[in-house]
């Protein structure tokens, strides 16, 4: 078996109990939520208590809780998440429509964080202890403390209201030709949300890369390279920055969940029709099935991202996944 296949298999086995616990929790949430599918149905059609009891019988809602749990888990296995009261359509279909926008936003955020955070980390770590390092390290502390929904509003105030550089929200231009082609148009819409969502990650990436580089500077092989008279810039890139990248990738894997959580407020501020805003709509519109669907999908996204991170790490470090087997 190849290393890649072994990593994928290992992650899948580890993910099974996690998904099972989350599914139990989802069932408990649905049971605890006030009102059920029949209440929601009757709110639209009307009907008396006898009709409600008949409907509960037909929907399988009058059964005992182990039977309902079994039915719920069975439906999950068939990827049936129920019907959204809010949209009048299957939950899975609504989420499937919204998920690509959130994934796009997450990818843009990862790019911003890796690009900007990497650049700043490189600048700070090239001369640890220097003035530039001190300024950037202080800036990183500030970036970690900014609430992202507030930053989103400040970015709108500066770049939309003040300078007029970017559109105020949405994911593409509606009711007109996309400015500069569809790709550029979407990118322009993504800049501010990605910046608002990614600011904390910029700081985290920067700090991790800087810490790794500061440590690498003290390593023997780096000092040897320095002593041999190799240009400082080449040493920075080849011997100091590359090994420091591994913890940065690990860090990203650890914070995918925070990214998904942050997308709720950022997508709400920027009116991005993604899964995060869908969670908000489900809460406000009292649609527990939809909310639980988002929760389960988000968990799956986190688990899949962790698997991708493992595969990326295996490429960066040949020792990973090669030990046993």
């Amino acid at each position, binding site marked *: 078996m190849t290393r890649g296949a072994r990593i994928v298999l290992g992650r899948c086995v580890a993910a099974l109990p996690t998904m099972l616990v989350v599914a139990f*929790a989802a069932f408990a949430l649905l049971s605890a939520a006030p009102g059920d599918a029949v209440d929601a149905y009757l709110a639209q059609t009307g009907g008396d208590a006898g009709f409600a009891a008949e409907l509960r019988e037909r929907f399988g809602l009058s059964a005992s809780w182990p039977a309902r749990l079994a039915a719920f888990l069975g439906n999950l296995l068939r990827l049936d998440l129920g019907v959204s009261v809010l949209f009048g359509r299957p939950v899975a279909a609504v989420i499937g429509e919204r998920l690509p926008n959130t994934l796009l936003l997450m990818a843009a955020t990862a790019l911003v964080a890796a690009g900007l955070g990497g650049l700043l980390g490189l600048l700070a770590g090239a001369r640890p202890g220097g003035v530039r390092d001190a300024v950037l390290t202080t800036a990183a502390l500030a970036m970690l403390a900014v*609430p992202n929904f*507030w930053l989103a509003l400040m970015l709108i105030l500066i770049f939309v209201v003040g300078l007029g550089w970017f559109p105020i929200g949405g994911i593409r231009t509606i009711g007109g030709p996309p400015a500069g082609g569809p790709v550029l148009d979407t990118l322009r819409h993504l800049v501010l949300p990605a910046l608002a969502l990614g600011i904390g990650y910029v700081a985290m990436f920067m700090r991790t890369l800087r810490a790794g580089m500061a440590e690498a500077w003290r390593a023997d092989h780096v000092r040897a390279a320095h002593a041999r008279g190799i240009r400082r810039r080449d040493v920075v890139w080849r011997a100091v920055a590359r090994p420091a990248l591994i913890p940065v990738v690990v860090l990203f894997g650890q914070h995918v969940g925070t990214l998904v959580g942050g997308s709720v407020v950022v997508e709400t501020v920027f009116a991005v029709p993604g899964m995060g805003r869908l969670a908000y709509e489900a809460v406000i519109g009292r649609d527990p099935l939809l909310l639980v669907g988002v929760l389960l999908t988000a968990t799956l996204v986190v688990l899949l991202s962790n698997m991708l991170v493992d595969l990326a790490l295996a490429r960066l470090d040949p020792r990973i996944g090669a030990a046993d087997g």
Partner: protein
Amino acid sequence: MADGIVGATLRRPEGGFGAAMLLLAAALALAAPLLAPGDPLAMVGRPLLAPLVDPALPLGTDRLGRSIAAGLVHGAQASLVTGLAVAVTALCVGAACGAVAGYLGGIVDEMLMRVADAAQTVPSFLLALALVSVIGPSPAGVVVALSAGSWTATARMVRAEVMSLRGRAFVEASRLVGRPPLAIAFRVVLPNALAPAIALAAVIVAGAILSESALAFLGLSDPNRASWGAMIAEGRSVLRTAPHVVVAPGVALFVTVLGVSRLGEGLRKALAGRAT
């Protein structure tokens, strides 16, 4: 010992800065009834008054003519109380789970750790959103919802500490004199594992303050209490004409979270300095 840690924390620049910021926020929160008597949600002036115009309303008013300064000091209560309550809850639940899992081991450990895995995998803000929508956005409901996703790090750390302490001689001695396993876990092992867990508290408080404000921003907070997140949400519709309504509570939030995280960093370094 405790005195030494407090002193060592405050002597560090980050610890002193963090403590000063936090003391300022706490003093404002405690003095809120004196500084801004009455209901902070009551209308006290002309709507959308600019800051620094009326000395009685130093930070101006919002869309409904409510004093922003009054909202800030009363909102500090909500932020700090929620942050501390979440940290206490998460630390207690996490330490208890970690101690039990680490000391008993076996199937109990396995089950608790699988639950911790799940709680760590589910995006914690989504979990909080779902829980608040079921429990309701009361202050206690928000604390429970935010704690649900923040106990796992403590549990893992305490579990690891307990496992490494379990085989030590003084624990063996307790077992030999016949104390029951749970009593040993809580009375003997846990106090020794607590120091690093306390440094985690600052991270939890900072995260909880941010998440509480984000929930309030989305409209999931007690509507009868002032909250910075709710103030920001309120000011959103007048962002263009009266940005001070949004800027003021955001700066307060930023300074508080920065203070908490700096104090935590100071504490972490002080603890690390003691260990070496």
